[in-house]
Each structure stands twice: as structure tokens, then as C-alpha cells.
């Protein structure tokens, strides 16, 4: 499948920016997305090709502006919904609950 992810030979992305002494993860949420993806994927729910296809199925405009673990998060959610483990509505509802709890915590 060609698409925005098929980057070999594309022009215009600018210089590479190696980060000295780069940490393995840059934020706590990245750790969780990584582990959730590995735990569910390699647990046999789906294989690496399905995982990649899910990430590559992300809207090209979103794909290009997403960070690496945001792409993983999109892919993970896509597979979980597709396999019927969670629904979009459940995720939205849980996000609202968590947001409300955090707001409450601040007050």
C-alpha cells in the first residue's frame, strides 16, 4: 500500500535533528502507549503487519503531523475498535470521566 508512510525518496522534510543523550521516552504517556501496544499486539491479538497497517490507515494529513507515539495511539485505538474490544463511545465516555475527575482534583 503506498501512502504518506511510504517516505523513501520524498523531498522537503528538512534536516535530521539527532538529539544528544536522547531519553528512551519523552513523556509518561508515551511509555503507556508503547506498553499497551506491545502487550496487546504481541499478546497475540494481532500481528505486526496488522499493527502497521492500522497505523498506515491513519488519515495521511494526521499521519504526517503526528509524533511517533501518537501514530501508535491512533493505530492501537483503530485495532481495538475493529476487533470489538472497545467502542468509540466507550472511549469518549471514559475520556470525559477522566477529564471531569482531573478538573475536580484541581478545584
Amino acid at each position, binding site marked *: 500500500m503506498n501512502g504518506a*508512510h*511510504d*517516505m*523513501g*525518496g*520524498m*523531498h522537503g*522534510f*528538512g*534536516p*535530521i*535533528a*539527532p*538529539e544528544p543523550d*536522547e*531519553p*528512551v*521516552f*519523552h*513523556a*509518561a*504517556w*508515551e*511509555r*503507556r*502507549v*508503547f*506498553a*499497551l501496544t*506491545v*502487550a*496487546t499486539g*504481541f499478546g497475540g*491479538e494481532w500481528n*505486526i*503487519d496488522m499493527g*502497521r497497517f492500522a*497505523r*498506515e490507515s491513519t488519515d495521511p494529513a494526521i499521519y*504526517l503531523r503526528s*509524533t*511517533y507515539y*501518537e501514530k501508535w*495511539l491512533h493505530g*492501537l*485505538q483503530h485495532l*481495538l475498535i475493529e476487533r470489538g*474490544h*472497545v467502542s468509540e463511545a*466507550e*472511549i469518549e465516555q*471514559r*475520556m470525559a470521566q*477522566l*477529564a471531569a475527575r482531573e478538573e475536580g482534583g484541581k478545584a
Partner: protein
Amino acid sequence: MAHDHHHHDDEHEHAALPDTLLRTKALESLLTEKGLVDPRALDELIDTYEHRVGPKNGARVVARAWVDPQFKAHLLADGTDAIKQFGFDGRQGKDMVVVENTPQVHNMVVCTLCSCYPWPVLGLPPVWYKSSPYRSRAVIDPRGVLAEFGVTLPATVEVKVWDSTAEVRYLVLPMRPEGSETLSEEQLAELVTRDSMIGTGLPRAPGTAV
């Protein structure tokens, strides 16, 4: 140090969209509730890849190849099997191919399609390896890319670029640095950098090890 680390995390947390943070938390909470994941198993995975698996593994393999010609022959013939002797196998490294740098050929590894990388020997890939600039340019302008990493090779050296796939993962066997003849295997491993095993760098010169 720990304080700095947390500060760093916080900055990125704020930089990330609230949607991303909430969505991540919501998915973990739902999957835990449904018994699909165990948060302790997630912690274990994170600890493994943040602290235990990394380029030090690959450095041990390279140093062994530098001192043991028989091992080197095995490594080049069947990378997966040779690396397994160290106990480095599993996820994202089940089919390893080791490519050797020589005075005539310099090898460099990319994954143009995503971020395939040999986890058991190098850990998780750095951000630049997964970035659009590296993925797009490594295959059309490898010398330009190398220059950005401060590596300039003689024009007579051929640069070979290996595009990883979901199945095959590459590890570059860099050339043993000059002046390292008297060093032990452990000391040699200190000279092997992560980038030298991706092919975007060269090993440290003896006496400059960190």
C-alpha cells in the same frame, strides 16, 4: 538528575494535546477493566525497554566479532543464531542480518516505511530514526545524511543502504578502530556507539571512550 528527568517529562506532557493524554489514560483504564492488560505487566515492559535492553547489547556482539574471527564468521552467516548466544532475541529481532563495514563498503540502515529496528540489540529507536527527514532521505542522499551526523567518507567508499522490513532487521558491524589492538573485549565494547551500529556514525577512537 531525577528532578531534571521529571521536568523534561512534564514539558512534553504539556506539549502533547490534552486529547492524547486523556485517550491514552482512557484506553489503559478500559483495557485493564476488561482484563486485556495488566498494569504491572505494562510497567515491566516499560522497565525492560527503558532500562535493560539497549545498544550496550549490540556493542557486546560487535566487540566479540572484533576479537573472535570464528564468531564473526558465524555472525555474518547467521546473525540471528549468533546473537542468540548472548540471550538477545525475541521481539523485533527474530530475523537478524549483520552487514559488515570494510575499507570499501559502508553500510547504513533505515526503515523508510515506519521504524523497524533490531530491538534486542539496540533497544527502541531514537526519534530521528523514526522521523520523516531520515526515512525520506537516507535512500536518496545517504552521503548528505551522513554529513549531518558528522561522518564524511572518502568518495571511493561505496555506501550501501539497507531498508528494514517487518521481518528482517539489520545491524551494522563497524570496522574496529585503529589503535585498539591492545584493548580487551570489554574495552572494545565501550567504543561501539549506537549510531555506529545503525551506520550513521563510526566507533569512538580508543582513548575517547566516555
